Every structure is written in structure tokens, then in C-alpha cells.
């Protein structure tokens, strides 16, 4: 009987996967990526964080120009927060121009096929300009700061759902030249 039960268990497991494929094909593709495509998923997570920062910089520089908003891999809450910041600056007749100097990936952890944490150390320069004349309103300032990104897997790719500042030691720069 045990042998029969084991054989049937294997047969039923195959049946279970087939039913899963028919009823929930998306979930199964998540599991497949998690088991066999971890390297691609990690690359995709890095790309998403880079794209997030690239479009964030564009949105600030263009005073919220919505052309790239649909490509912005951020949750609605984060988008609203960004636009509240732009409104705050606009109410003071200002614009902020961010320029990323460097971004180092420090830690990447996939909590499940649907959720991941990425820790980065970012170096930024920024300057305030007058809005709308774009005349310079402050000197150029710079800062280095660690950030933890929490990302959620969507059908089309990863989405940043939270960005939290964290205290991380500045990474050593190996390939830097000094003259």
C-alpha cells in the first residue's frame, strides 16, 4: 500500500502543478523565476532601483513633467509623496535638481518570489533653482546616504513600494583615481 500511495502522490503532484498552470499561470511563473531565474531577478531588481532614481531625477528636474510617470517603477503612495514635495518647493518658488554621483549596491535580499529588499549607498549632488526662471538659488551641495528599497513583484516587473534612509558605512572605492 505504501508503494502505491507514493506512486499516486507523485502522480497527484504532477496533477497539482498542471491544475496550477491552468488556474494560476502567473503565480507559477513567479515560482519558476524564484527557483531557476534568481540571477535574472537580481539583475532586474538592480535595474529597477537604477531606473527609479533616473526617473526620479528627471521628474524633479522637469518640475513633475508627467511624460515619464508611467515608466516610473514606484507605488502610487511614493508618487504622491514626490508630487507633494514638488508642490512644497513650487509654493516657495523653488525647484531642486538632483544629480547622482554614485550608487553602490550593498545588500540584496529576496524575501519571497514577490518581495525583495535592496540596500544601496547613494551619493548625490543637488542645487536649488528659482521656479520658473531657473536661476540658481543655492550653492551645490552633496551628501552620501544609505537607502533600503522595498520592492514588490508585479506582472510586468518590480515596483518600489518603500524607500527608507538607513545608516550604512560609506563603501570603499576600489577603482578610483586621484590626480
Amino acid at each position, binding site marked *: 500500500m505504501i508503494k502505491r500511495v507514493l506512486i499516486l502522490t507523485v502522480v497527484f503532484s504532477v496533477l*497539482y502543478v498542471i491544475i496550477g498552470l491552468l488556474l494560476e499561470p502567473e503565480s507559477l511563473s513567479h515560482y519558476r523565476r524564484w527557483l531557476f531565474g534568481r540571477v535574472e531577478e537580481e539583475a532586474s531588481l538592480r535595474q529597477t532601483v537604477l531606473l527609479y532614481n533616473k526617473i526620479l531625477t528627471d521628474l524633479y528636474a522637469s518640475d513633475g513633467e508627467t511624460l515619464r510617470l508611467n515608466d516610473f517603477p514606484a507605488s502610487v503612495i511614493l508618487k504622491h509623496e514626490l508630487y*507633494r514635495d514638488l508642490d512644497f518647493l513650487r509654493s516657495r518658488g523653488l525647484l531642486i535638481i538632483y544629480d547622482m554621483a554614485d550608487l553602490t549596491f550593498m545588500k540584496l535580499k529576496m*524575501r*519571497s518570489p514577490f518581495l525583495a529588499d535592496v540596500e544601496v549607498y547613494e551619493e*548625490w549632488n*543637488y542645487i536649488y533653482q528659482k521656479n520658473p526662471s531657473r536661476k540658481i538659488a543655492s550653492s551645490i551641495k552633496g551628501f552620501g546616504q544609505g537607502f533600503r528599497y522595498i520592492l514588490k513583484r508585479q506582472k510586468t516587473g518590480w515596483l518600489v513600494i518603500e524607500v527608507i534612509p538607513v545608516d550604512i558605512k560609506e563603501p570603499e572605492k576600489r577603482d578610483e583615481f586621484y590626480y
Partner: protein
Amino acid sequence: MNFIINSITLLSSYTIFLSLFMTQFVITSFLIIIFKIPFWQVFGSGPSFVFTGLLLINRVSGSIFEIKKGRWKGALFSVWFILVSSGLLVNYFYRTDGITNLTDEGMVSGFVISQKGRFASGNEISAFIKGDNIEVLKGKRSFIIPAKDGFYPRAFFSYFFSVKKDFSPMFVIKDNEGKVLDTAFLIPEGFSQDNLYFRSPALPHRFYIKIEGRDSLSFRITRGKLTIKKGLVKLNEELEFEGLRVSFPEIKEIFTVRIIHYPGNKVILVGSLIIFLLLFIKGINRLVAK
């Protein structure tokens, strides 16, 4: 006709039952352990429902055969299994899991539901502190639980209350003319004190807060990528940032109460008790007969 009867007998056999059960158990454990998917999400997936349905059909038809043949022990096991599976299905469709926050003045946040079954009824829950206890009211039902850290099952394990005592600072945000823009108690999010922050709808800033003692807090005010200000602040001390002011006039004791309702547990527990009682009586009868 014989073929049909043989097929039904085979499909209601324990071999099929054990194989279906093993498949369900192994795949569910695999999804929970390897993919870290919550139990209810796995249980509520399409293939899991199909297999639970097949298990129920197997045991319902199995119990009919067993009763016909006078195998009462087997029939009781089948009935017990049907009860447990039905209880789990009731839990899946009718469960609620949420959090509320209380101070001695009453609820400072509504009942925030983190999980809810498809057919679970509303969230009319109210709670208040009554001496050393917390009274929770849900519809006509009332539960008394101690106002101290702990996990308290009630009503045949169909309700679970988890209590956590915490401290909550009150914040006041003013503009540079002294006009109050926003004030509220900072509600701890879930059960985690890491990276606790609050926001005001009037501002783009985030205020990260950590209580450092009875009268001081460490803070970090951020806007976009920038950290505007960070450091330590005492109660009632005003912090100036970007032409605005924020202060923390008081820190209150706050109770975070997690309320979990699994109505199916009553079915499972009461059903199991009756079945075991019947088995016990049957065992005693057999002993007496000997």
C-alpha cells in the same frame, strides 16, 4: 454497473485519501517553507481548493461505505476529517485579522484589517481599557483580556487576542506663524518599531521617530532624498525645519491589540471533542463487554 461501483470504491479508498493528503501536505509545506508564502494564500489557491474538494468527496463517500459496512471507527475518522476540512474552509472565507490601538482615553485608531476572508462580516469592533483589563466589543459579544503583553485565546479558540504595550508620542506641526497644521498620536505600525515614521497630509516630509526614554526621542526629518534634520529632542521642545516647527508635547502608554477571528476553529474543536468522546465511550463499552 460493477465498473461504476468499483470505481467509486477505489476513489473513496484510503489509498487515494492518503495520496491526496500527502500531495496537499507536501506541496503546501514546500510553498510555505521555500517560497515563504502565507498559509492562507496557499490554502486559497486554485489547485489547493481542487485537492481539498477531492479529499472531502473521498471522505464523504468513504464514510457512507464505512457506515454501510458497520466500520464505525473508520466512519468517525472520516466525519472528523470532514469537520476539520470544513472548519478550515470556514476560516478561509470568514476569517478576520486586524489591529487596533488604545490609550486610556479609548481607541486612537480604527480596527485596521490586515487579512479578511471573502465573506467575513464588517469590522464593527470597539475596545477600551477597563482597570487592569481591556474590553473588546464585537457586535453583541464582549471579551475581557488582561491589559498586559500576551496572547489570549477566547471562545473555543475562535478568537485570539495579542496585546502589546507600547509608547506613542503626540506630535504637533505648526507653520512659522504658530498655526497648527497637524496634530495626532503616532500610531505604531503593526508590531514593528523599526523605521517608524509619520507623515502629515499637509507636508512632503517624513518624520522618523524612535522613543529613547520617558521624555526624549531621536528623530530624522526627511524630504525626498534629503535628510533635513536629525538628532535628539525632548518633550515640548520645538524643532525648526524649513520654516516649520514640530514638537512632541507628550508620550502616552498605548496598547496595540491584534484581534484574530477564526470562526471555523469552533467547528473543528467541538467536532473533535464529540468524535473523541464517542471513541472513548466505544472503547469503554468494549472493555466492559470483555
